[in-house]
């Protein structure tokens, strides 16, 4: 038997491209006709929402924006839900960008998706946007010590001292909550080393789904919470009652995984089939 092309051999040597094609079709189906399968929310997402919701009125929130254009499909639901939750409350928000794409994403979101003025928010009084600065770890350390040592103007070139909101804000002491956004999984160590360990700064994180496992050792002992990927982003839409794109993306994931399951069944059937038939 061995050497002949048995059914087990065929199962183990399928041309990958068939399953690639099946997977694309399976992803397309819910995009055309959503399945509407409800999502369960987890404690980690509720903790994230509470970290914002429990802030007293007038608290200062700093958002370290480290997002990238290439990963926007994964993180957009978490971003939009977070902006909506922040702007729905009486909070002052300081956005600063650590990636070149950061300002581009914030421009795109605040002009088209979440308009601060629709929430009664006034630039320079309720929120401020500092521009792009490739801070890295040393820059985050300097920012925590003194914002003005890293940013002398906002993203439009206005000196910080001329901005009402920034009058009494210059260091970690003035910040009640840090929302740290990053896409390189090891960057979670930067917020731990430069904000949490030295100053016990209350912090939450937003990162890619693949960085969840690497962030989990720091939750809840050091990070109050973190959202990793579009799943938790969709959960925050539910917990915060701020509908967005997350629900649809997660709905479409449901069938896309089936391509993988096909591969798994065939791969194991092939291996055990050959083994049990002495192939």
């Amino acid at each position: 038997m061995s050497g002949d092309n048995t059914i087990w051999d065929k199962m183990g040597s399928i041309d990958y491209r068939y399953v690639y094609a099946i997977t694309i079709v399976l992803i397309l189906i819910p995009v055309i006709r959503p399945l509407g399968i409800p999502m369960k929310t987890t404690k980690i997402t509720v903790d994230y929402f509470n970290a914002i919701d429990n802030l007293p009125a007038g608290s200062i929130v700093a958002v370290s924006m480290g997002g990238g254009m290439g990963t926007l499909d994964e993180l957009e639901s978490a971003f939009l839900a977070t902006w909506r939750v922040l702007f729905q409350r009486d909070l002052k928000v300081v956005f600063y960008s650590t990636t070149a794409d950061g300002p581009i994403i914030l421009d795109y979101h605040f002009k088209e998706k979440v308009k601060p003025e629709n929430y009664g928010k006034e630039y320079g009084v309720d929120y401020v946007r500092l521009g792009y600065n490739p801070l890295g770890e040393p820059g985050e350390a300097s920012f925590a010590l003194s914002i003005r040592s890293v940013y002398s103007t906002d993203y439009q070139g206005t000196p910080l001292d001329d901005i009402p909101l920034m009058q009494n804000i210059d260091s970690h002491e003035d910040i009640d909550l840090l929302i740290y956004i990053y896409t390189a999984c090891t960057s979670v160590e930067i917020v731990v080393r430069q904000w949490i360990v030295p100053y016990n700064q209350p912090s939450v994180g937003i990162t890619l789904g693949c960085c969840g496992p690497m962030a989990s050792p720091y939750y809840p002992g050091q990070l109050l919470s973190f959202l990793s990927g579009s799943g938790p982003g969709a959960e925050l839409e539910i917990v915060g009652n701020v509908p967005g794109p997350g629900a649809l993306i997660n709905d479409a994931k449901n069938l896309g995984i089936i391509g993988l399951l096909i591969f798994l069944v065939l791969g194991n059937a092939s291996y055990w089939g050959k083994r049990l038939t002495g192939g």
Partner: protein
Amino acid sequence: MIRTGTYWDFILLVLMIAAVYYYMDKALKGKELPRIRTIPAVEAIYEGVGRSIELDKPVHFAMGASGGQLHTSLVSMTLAALMILRHTVKLCARLGSRLIIHIPGQTEAIPLVEGIARDAYLEEGKPEMLRRDDMRYHGYASTSFTQAVAGTYAREGVGLNVMVGIWYTDCVMPLEASKIYGGLNVGGTARWIMAYAFAMMTDYLLLGEELYAAGAAVSDNPVMVSGIASEEIGKYFVLLLLIVGLVLMAVGVNMGSIFAM
């Protein structure tokens, strides 16, 4: 005095300096060093170069779209990858195989990458084998680097594919593309988050710290090999710290605040 919150860091640093100095001194004096267990992936590189010659396909070496980091905290991984580059170049020169080096995005690393390749060819007496047109630069972004490397496998073939050093999402496509186009994959990264891709897509794996051990093993330099013995001292210290710390914590000592000293 030492800044609060760094006492344990200082203790560990002093211990590691002592261990490195002790074993380096032994190596320089030609004394016997602890034996290092074999790492299959190191042997596989030699086997792979031979295979490439039989198939008349080039050997490929890549250290990541962002694998030339020199001034960040991943610099050690860059240097370990360059040790394996040096070894690969020497084997290719000795056996007469064509080598394509995919330069990382960091242009500041280019002098080092080319310098090491040139030195290795010189040591084997084959300086003419260094070809700048086989040192491919694909831009400082994983999207351009990854697609170009995968495309090169398809167009110019791949015999042995060595991928080591600092890898992010950029490793998945080249690893599978090399497999699809018949390459022998040897590689690994010390970034644990991406180790899964190498574990599932290579024929010979360097898992986590094995990247550093392989870098030292291929150096033919006792001082480098002595480094592995120094690391073990660190491991034993950490294991001791873990076990004693757990016992102390169990009897009520607040180890969290002790480590925050």
